[in-house]
């Protein structure tokens, strides 16, 4: 008898505690303590893409030494998470490797602007017995390999591009990313542009349904699988391949040249896209026209509201962006990112004026 009463009491008590917690919960701390003077510290929260995290954290720490009162806290939770949090306004700014879709933009409480910050690229890496030199690929051949249509390394399509290279008659093992990733987005965006079949069968997203192959987690997972599996081909970020001195193949660009991924070739791809840059910067620069442009390149974007609720934080972010687009760009190459071409920086400086900071 007593026991039952106790049990009820206990449940009631827990419920009361739970309800109490729910009722009295404080509203989430504001993104910034909008100080009256500049002396007060300003904390700005952002979240998003993991790919630009090294350069962003470098920027935020450098900027903090220049402006000790401004502290930016950036969580690299992934592009998807970044978009979601900026739409829900749980962070002040977001960051993404793939531009937001119309639906996502509509879901936001205000107009969101895209600002390219740096550039990245994706390179094909492979491990074929007896092949030490650099292989040449075209977009359609890469698409057919990743569609599973080219099954052997001595396929005439590959052999034709690489005269003089003895290709073995071994099976092709495709290695792709298993985790949702901006790297995948850039790669399939390119393959979809050069292969209608890839576009209709696979499509463009941070995670796609691969027709063949095995998935590795992260750049390290893909490169680990490629180095260990004879006859395999995968794709990794240019930075990752450069830092780990992994050899990679060159890809034919829209102008017909075979270009090897490099910081220079990526910036050239962005410069080629600059004259036709849409006003909102939501542009894919894969398969860019122009001499020397590396075809599997992409911007990475920072997301800001046009009319931010917190004006102090808005002003600070605009100031920061102006610094990042000019002085900040010099940190890019050392970290393996391609800096923005001057033409794009000019367009962005003008776009920053749109942000209502007062």
């Amino acid at each position, binding site marked *: 008898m007593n026991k039952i009463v106790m049990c009820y009491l206990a449940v009631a008590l*827990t419920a009361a505690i739970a309800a109490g917690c729910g009722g009295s919960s404080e509203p989430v701390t504001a993104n910034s303590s909008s100080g009256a003077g500049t002396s007060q510290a300003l904390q700005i929260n952002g979240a998003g893409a993991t790919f630009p995290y090294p350069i962003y954290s470098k920027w935020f720490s450098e900027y903090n030494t220049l402006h000790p009162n401004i502290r930016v806290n950036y969580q690299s939770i992934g592009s998807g998470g970044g978009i979601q949090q900026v739409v829900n306004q749980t962070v002040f700014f977001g960051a993404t490797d793939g531009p937001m879709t119309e639906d996502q933009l509509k879901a936001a409480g205000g107009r969101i602007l895209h600002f390219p910050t740096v550039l990245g690229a994706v390179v094909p890496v492979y491990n074929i017995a007896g092949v030490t030199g650099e292989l040449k690929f075209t977009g359609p051949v890469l698409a057919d390999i990743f569609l599973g249509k080219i099954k052997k390394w001595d396929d005439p399509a590959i052999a034709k591009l690489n005269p003089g290279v003895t290709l073995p008659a071994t099976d092709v093992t495709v290695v792709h990313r298993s985790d949702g990733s901006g790297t995948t987005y850039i790669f399939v965006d390119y393959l979809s542009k050069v292969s209608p079949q890839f576009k209709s069968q696979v*499509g463009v997203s941070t995670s796609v349904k691969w027709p063949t*192959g095995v998935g*590795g987690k992260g750049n390290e997972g893909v490169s680990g699988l490629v180095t260990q599996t004879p006859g395999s081909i995968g794709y990794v970020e240019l930075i990752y391949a450069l830092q780990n001195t992994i050899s990679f193949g060159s890809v034919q660009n829209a102008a017909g040249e075979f270009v090897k991924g490099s910081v220079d070739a990526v910036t050239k791809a962005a410069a080629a896209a600059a004259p036709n840059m849409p006003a909102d910067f939501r542009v894919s620069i894969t398969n860019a026209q122009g001499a020397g442009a590396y075809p599997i390149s992409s911007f990475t974007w920072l997301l800001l509201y046009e009319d931010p609720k917190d004006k102090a934080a808005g002003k600070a972010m605009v100031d920061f962006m102006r610094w990042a687009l000019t002085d900040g760009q010099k940190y890019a190459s050392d970290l393996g990112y391609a800096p923005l071409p001057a033409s794009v920086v000019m367009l962005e400086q003008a776009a920053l004026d749109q942000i209502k900071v007062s």
Partner: protein
Amino acid sequence: MRSSDFGFRVAVGAFAAALLLIVVAIAVTLVNDSTLSIQKFGLRFWGTSNWDPVAGEFGALPFIWGTLYSSVLALLIATPVALGIAVFISELCPNALRAPLIFLTELLAAIPSIVYGLWGIFVLVPAVRTVETAMPESLRALPLFSGPPLGVGMFAAALILAVMVVPFTSAIAREVLRTVPPSQREGAFALGATRFEAIRAAMFYARTGIIGAVMLGFGRALGETMAVTMVIGNNPQVSLSLFAPQYTMAAVLANEFTEAADALYLAALIEIGLVLFVITLFVNMLSRGLIWSMARQASPRRSVLVPRGAEA
């Protein structure tokens, strides 16, 4: 009843109730956040194999299959080893060896799963590939061994899971065997039993606890994420082949959750979590039922002792 006693009972009762609340809250959240996917796909979600984030088509079958297949395989490999360790430590081991052995098995349990995963990629996977390549063509023709020799795949995942499960199963089985009263063994010896027969009698006596230990290992295998995703190949397909790359529910969650920006995609991933939750619940209930029915079959006096916590 004294007042301090009363307060104590309320406090611990509240903790117990909190446990229940947490489970219910998890279930409610999972159902709530996956509504979009539940409404769109219904039961089809459980039975179809198409997982296409671009087209917005989601079916969980390959992940359910991969999770259950890898966990069952891991159990088949781990259980004999874990029970062997438990029997050796509790029955046969010289005293001087006992403490180091217990320490070593517990050390295995303390290794982070990402470390297991890295070890899997760099040591286990190449070894598995060597075995696969060395396998004669006649065997490779069997559905169980079909597919190219990649190294990564179901077999590597089952092996790594087995290594991770062994310390848990063996630790609990060992404790269960320790609770067998000495009179049982003495009785067996008195009847002229050999060492082996006496141990068999002790194990029979402790069988419900041992099943509990095995099921705990199964539960751990079902939910293991990091190490598995690094070696299983992450290809959503339903295949009997041990060498085929496959996928598990926990792995797809870890892989795709961060970049899932689309509402339906996110709901489908959360529904995967719900499916995993339901399957874990079902497995736990099954093991409970098994233990209960065995306990009932035993003598009416319920002589079989199941330590609390070991049966879950």
